[in-house]
């Protein structure tokens, strides 16, 4: 499969090139750049691996920030919010910069991609080669143009440094205290990109949420440009009694810090709001956090998903297209949602799948579960800076996703994975990083491995006949911390692989449904992240109403309850331990 429609109009590609005269040196440098590709991945490495692609094998090195990347890699169909975030990331990349689109079509507001590929490893590798060729030819040009998009423009607002809730569009004075309002840039984040050569660029801290225009209040609350260290006044502190200037007298540290809010470790520090996400390397792609940092401790957290499920209604659909739509709901667990849709429809029709098909579904579900947990482990490895864990888990995940059913390949994979899992927690310091982290407060509503890690043996599979026949039992642990959740998931990988080897069937026909089907159906399924349930109403063969509950919707709310003045790294590990999939969050 060859790469599609690559080299495009002058205008499009010149937003990526850097302005320079053509010379032997420029050619030498562009050739060097074509061989040293650093990729910033949208939506995230987790999605890339879940789709079975191996970027490193294709010759791309993953970079942690758009600043250090030369290629923006877009994988799969992206929702609008994510495209805006990607546009902001693109604007932050230094030139020359390129775009590689894999399985993605319309990319606006981004410019046309410089190379495209399909969602297959071979096509990807060809795309990368072509990208390299583009770079060595066109990285430097005589004339370049700015990248201008709505998502990337700044809006200047005026706020009071003592009362940040007061925000106006014009300068004036604060209605509360009478001070002059100071200017501040807000969400959407950047000035127009200047021309390459001349020094200063309007650039803002990266990973800033592209500003979801629908939700106006969110735009105000985000802190763009930094509010740390009092650069733009104090993030929310009231120093009413403080008076700068000559009449100050002796400044006692104790007096000055008396009224500052204290965090758990007793150090009074400036509070700053920092966005983490939606394209942050240590978090699932699409998860956007706004953390209030007290030094390097997280005092508060707000979590949103910019890739969540907005509305599944709309046009009535035939059962076939409905199933397809559900399968595309969450790129991290497509099989689970496809089977959920099938089950709900079968429940409405009063039918039941035959045994061979049921076994095949178990096979597919358990494969996906094991792959999902391995992918989670790889993400955890990257977060913890444990390079070997990240790379081994990633490779095992990819091998599992592409392994054929039956035969020695899966059995060999099972032994390899078993050995790997034994080593994971025995690595020095791994347990230290996970133990006691992110214990959920009382009354938290959790599901899936998170619930099972609290000792609640809650697993939708335990009620299903097929699973009981295969001898399934849920994996349960007692403590409620990140270590416990990791243990549950590791054990589930092993059990899923065992189920996989026991089921060993791959017969998955496309089920046919009665065109005049009417009725209501309900079904539940144990996705890798928890129990999901679906209720559909059919009228004469078309889906007219549906209601879906997903585990990540609850878990997203749990993220906000995790902020407890712990260090950033610990907080992020806690968020990772919940294994939230922002794609299945119902907004």
């Amino acid at each position, binding site marked *: 499969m060859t790469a599609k429609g690559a080299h495009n109009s002058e205008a499009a590609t010149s937003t990526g090139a*850097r302005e320079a005269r053509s010379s032997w040196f*420029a050619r*030498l*440098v*562009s050739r*060097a*750049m074509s*061989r*040293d590709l650093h990729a910033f991945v949208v939506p995230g490495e987790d999605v890339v691996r879940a789709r079975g692609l191996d970027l*490193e094998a294709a010759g791309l*090195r993953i970079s*942690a*920030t758009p*600043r*250090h990347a*030369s290629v923006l890699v877009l994988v799969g169909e992206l929702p609008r919010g994510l495209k805006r975030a990607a546009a902001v990331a693109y604007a932050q990349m*230094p*030139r*020359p910069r390129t775009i590689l689109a894999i399985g993605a079509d319309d990319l606006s507001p981004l410019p046309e991609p410089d190379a495209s590929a399909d969602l297959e490893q071979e096509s990807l590798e060809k795309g990368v080669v072509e990208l390299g060729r583009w770079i060595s030819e066109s*990285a430097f040009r005589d004339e370049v143009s700015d990248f201008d998009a709505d998502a990337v423009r700044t809006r200047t607002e005026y706020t009071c440094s003592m009362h940040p809730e007061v925000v106006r569009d014009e300068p004036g004075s604060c209605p509360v205290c009478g001070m002059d309002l100071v200017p501040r840039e807000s969400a959407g984040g950047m*000035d127009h990109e200047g021309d*390459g*050569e001349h*020094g*200063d*660029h*309007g*650039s*803002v*801290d*990266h*990973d800033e949420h592209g500003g979801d225009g629908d939700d106006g209040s969110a735009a105000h609350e985000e802190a763009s*440009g*930094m509010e*740390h*260290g009092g*650069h733009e006044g104090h993030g929310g502190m009231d120093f009413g009694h403080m008076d700068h200037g000559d009449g100050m007298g002796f400044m006692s540290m104790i007096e000055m810090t008396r009224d500052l809010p204290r965090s758990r470790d007793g150090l009074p520090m400036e509070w*700053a709001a*920092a966005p983490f996400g939606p394209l*942050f*390397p*240590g978090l699932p792609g699409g998860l956007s956090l706004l953390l209030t*940092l007290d030094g*390097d401790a997280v005092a508060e957290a707000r979590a949103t998903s910019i890739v969540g499920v907005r509305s599944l209604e709309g046009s009535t659909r035939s059962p076939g297209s409905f199933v397809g739509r559900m399968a595309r709901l969450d790129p991290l667990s497509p099989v689970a949602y496809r089977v959920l849709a099938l089950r709900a429809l079968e429940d409405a029709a009063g039918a039941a799948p035959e045994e061979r098909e049921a076994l095949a579904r178990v096979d597919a579900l358990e494969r996906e579960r094991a792959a999902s947990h391995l992918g989670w482990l790889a993400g955890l490895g*990257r*977060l*913890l*800076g*444990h*390079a*070997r*864990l990240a790379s081994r888990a990633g490779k095992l995940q990819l091998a599992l996703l592409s392994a054929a059913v039956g035969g020695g390949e899966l059995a060999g994979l099972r032994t390899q994975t078993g050995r790997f899992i034994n080593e994971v927690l025995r*690595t*020095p*310091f791994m347990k*230290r*990083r996970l133990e006691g982290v992110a214990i959920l407060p009382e009354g938290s509503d959790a599901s899936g491995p998170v619930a099972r890690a609290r000792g609640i043996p809650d697993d939708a599979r335990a009620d299903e006949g097929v699973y009981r026949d295969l001898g399934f039992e849920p994996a349960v642990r007692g403590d409620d911390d990140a270590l416990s959740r990791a243990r549950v998931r590791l054990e589930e990988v092993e059990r899923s692989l065992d189920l996989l080897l026991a089921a060993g069937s791959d017969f998955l026909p496309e089920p046919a449904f009665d065109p005049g089907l009417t009725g209501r159906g309900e079904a539940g399924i144990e996705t890798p992240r928890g129990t999901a349930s679906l209720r559909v109403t059919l009228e004469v063969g078309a889906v007219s109403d549906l209601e879906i509950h997903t585990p990540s919707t609850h878990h997203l709310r749990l993220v906000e309850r995790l902020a407890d003045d712990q*260090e*950033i*790294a610990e907080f992020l590990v806690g968020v990772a331990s919940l294994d939230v999939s922002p794609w299945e969050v119902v907004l």
Partner: protein
Amino acid sequence: MSVALTLLMLAAGAYLVAVLEGWISTGRLSAAGPITGGLALLGRESLVPRKPDRIFFEVAPPLLLVSAVLAFAVLPISPNLIVADLATGALFVNAALAYVMVALVMAGWGPDGVYAMVGGWRFLGQLIAYSMLIVMPITAVAMRAESLVTTDVVVSQAALPNALYQPVGFLVFVAAAMAVCFLPPLDLPNAPGELAGGVEAEYTGWRLAVFRLARLLLVVTLAAAITVFYLGGWSGPLLPPWAWSAAKALLVAAAMLMVGRYVPRLGEADFLQWCWKLGIPLALFNIFYVGVLLLVLP
């Protein structure tokens, strides 16, 4: 002449360590890797954040570079190849390395970004942990050599390298050295997974190239310091002295780079606890132990 040659060896060492680092992180051995990478970096724009503290933003990478080179300047590669044979050489290494902290504080503060600032703060935590441990083992080394001159330190190890004579001090110093050049698992300031690059996040283009080069030179310098203080520097049969120094330093650098892949990042609080509760008593014990050995053994 010898100065130029020594600096040339530093450059060569940095190049080889860069190749090693590339090999370890990508699994592919690419001899021209550093050149390609360096050219690629130089070809990219160097962006400046919107409201930086300009002086600090600009000064931080060169300061890191200068600090690494100055520390290397007092380390001998062979009896004749040393840039500056100071009488207080062993102490001077520490003086130069102290500016690593200054540079990272500047790099943390300069760009006016949360990730960079948090990276700077975390390096402070790391500094408080390692600063005692990078000096105390050198005390014991100087005790054996009865001199602070680095060439004397190497000569004093003719009978037995310090790694075997004072193993506790050796281990402590290696751990502290990894903290100074913030290699994984002690890479709190730039933490790629957690802080999206931390202190180096806001540097691009040629400034990033300078920063990375400085970091590389720091690794080479610390490997050379470990070689001089603990592995007997240039001593060894058959090969010429400079070859031994180079080989030992490269081995040490490779070991330091590889360890990080197998272990998760050490949390700040944990590292501080380990260093102060375990590291410092061990370093004190090491000094006592070396003192006893020196006084008791003939």
